[in-house]
């Protein structure tokens, strides 16, 4: 736990591409076991920010602290091992693998089998494989995937099921912090509500913190305990849903300046 008790802190995190300032001086603190959101118009830098949190981009300036540990610029697989998992805006499942295999890849960071162990199938490796297989099934059931679909190729699953598998895969690495990038994209209101309830459920049952990027205001306002608003790479507002809803700058960012 960091000095201020946050599970995730970013300090003036910035990302520059060539001459373009994609994320500028964004500092956030995320309380543990909370559900929080980052919102903002398109192009605001939200996914870029996420990518820095997961190690896909190295910040140009600033720091990222996970549970007090400085993970700025750490490789993505090490950040996953440290307890951060994510889903992607456009679902990035391994489409030629089955749903179960996808989730088993999610367990990679928690498995210990090495090259020789895998070749020789030592008893511990065998135990680990069957434990991971079982866990995979459990995860898929937990997210609501029908058992007969567990061994189905990911590419053949429906969009909604694919989203479920992605979440299962993320949960498989036993994260402390789950980053969801537009999880309700393409969902109808009922499905969005189901997902919102599910987020609450996993937060409780799995001791997780959830950080969302979202466009669906109903979901955001309904589930978030804290919201940050980005526009053109900068943090323009933060606070609880009511504050944000009434914030002039936020309204302006989304809707533009009122005609005078």
């Amino acid at each position: 736990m960091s000095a201020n008790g946050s599970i995730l802190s970013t300090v003036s995190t910035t990302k520059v591409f060539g001459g373009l300032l994609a994320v500028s001086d964004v500092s956030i603190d995320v309380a543990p076991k909370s559900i929080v959101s980052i919102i903002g118009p398109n192009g605001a830098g939200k996914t870029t920010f996420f990518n820095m949190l997961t190690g896909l981009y190295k910040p140009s300036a600033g720091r990222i602290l996970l549970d007090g540990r400085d993970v700025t610029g750490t490789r993505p697989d090490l950040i996953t091992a440290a307890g951060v998992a994510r889903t992607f805006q456009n679902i990035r499942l391994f489409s030629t693998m089955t749903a179960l295999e996808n989730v088993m890849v999610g367990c990679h960071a928690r498995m210990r089998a090495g090259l020789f162990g895998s070749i020789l199938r030592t008893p511990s490796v065998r135990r680990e494989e069957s434990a991971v297989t079982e866990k995979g099934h459990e995860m898929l059931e937990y997210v609501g995937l029908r058992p007969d679909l567990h061994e189905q190729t990911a590419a053949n699953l429906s969009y909604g099921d694919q989203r479920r598998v992605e979440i299962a895969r993320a949960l498989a690495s036993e994260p402390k912090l789950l980053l969801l990038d537009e999880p309700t994209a393409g969902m109808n209101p009922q499905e969005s509500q189901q997902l919102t309830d599910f987020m609450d459920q996993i937060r409780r049952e799995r001791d997780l913190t959830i950080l969302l990027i979202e466009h669906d205001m109903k979901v955001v306002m309904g589930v978030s305990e804290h919201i940050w608003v980005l526009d053109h790479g900068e943090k323009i507002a933060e606070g609880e849903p009511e504050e944000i809803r009434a914030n002039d700058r936020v309204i302006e960012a989304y809707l533009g300046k009122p005609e005078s």
Partner: protein
Amino acid sequence: MEAAGISADAALKPRASEVISEFISKYGLIAILIAFPAYYGIQDLIDDGNLTRLGNNLADGLSNGAIWALVALGYTLVYGIIELINFAHGEIFMIGAFSAFALWEPLGLHANTGTIGLILGLLVTLVAAMLVSGSLNVMIERVGYRPLRGAPKLAPLITAVGFSFILQNVGILWLGASQRAVPDLIHSQRELFDIFGVSISRGDLLAIAVTIPLVLLLTSFVAQSRLGKAMRATAQDPEAAKLMGINVDTTISLTFLLGGLLAGAAGLINTLYQTNVWYFQGFTAGLIAFTAAVMGGIGNLRGAVLGGLIIGCIQQISDNRIGNEWTPAVIFAYLVLIMVFRPQGLVGEETREAG
């Protein structure tokens, strides 16, 4: 919590580590390139007291390099437009050389042909070589790459390798498996003049004299003509180009045609210069020219020419100083170094990370 407060200006200044790695990347490569001739230059000064030997190396290197520049342009044009390494491009060059040579006897060209006849005859073979290579390149694209446009990149790359082998064997069947000496039509080694003791031969002059106009023609065509603009648009964004009414298929075929034309010309020049042909010359030429294209920055025309000239010099120095059995290893070692230090090449720009 620490005070935030990095202003936008400060944030835009690149970090120290980024500056250093960019520096190493660019100047590291340049340093490696210069180190090679510099080392031998210093040796020359010690041994001979002058740089004549190095100068000769460089003169020959630039002429060879001009030929590689033509071939490299073909690689870079194709890669720029469809992001495919046309592995068979070296063989296109070889077939161009073979086709040119094949016409010499029928046209009555030999070492003693009069100047006018020689020039006219060579122009005919030049055009023929260019057309053969150009159409062959177009055909390969049509048959081997177009059907695989949607497939993973692995697929057309393997097809390209396959075509390379098929064409090499065409070469074997055509003129046999050993190197074949050809008539020295332009007396290519005859010295024309010298600059500060560095000897410039007829072959050198030919290589430069034919390459420069072709390169200028090509660059102005790509920059200014409608088709050239279509090529650049397709290279940047094929989907958008299609929506703008550009026929992407035709544009791609045209690109292959241009690349082939240049390779065919290079084939003829090379034959006149080296006075021999060999089925295997395409493989070596291909890898050398590809190294040149990558060194310059793949997709970048100026880069391909620059890379060609540089590689020509490296090749010549290596042939002369280390031994030509080692030259391929030297050049490929440079290729690996480029990939390690600066895969985007000397002139190429780092692609913008999207997101």
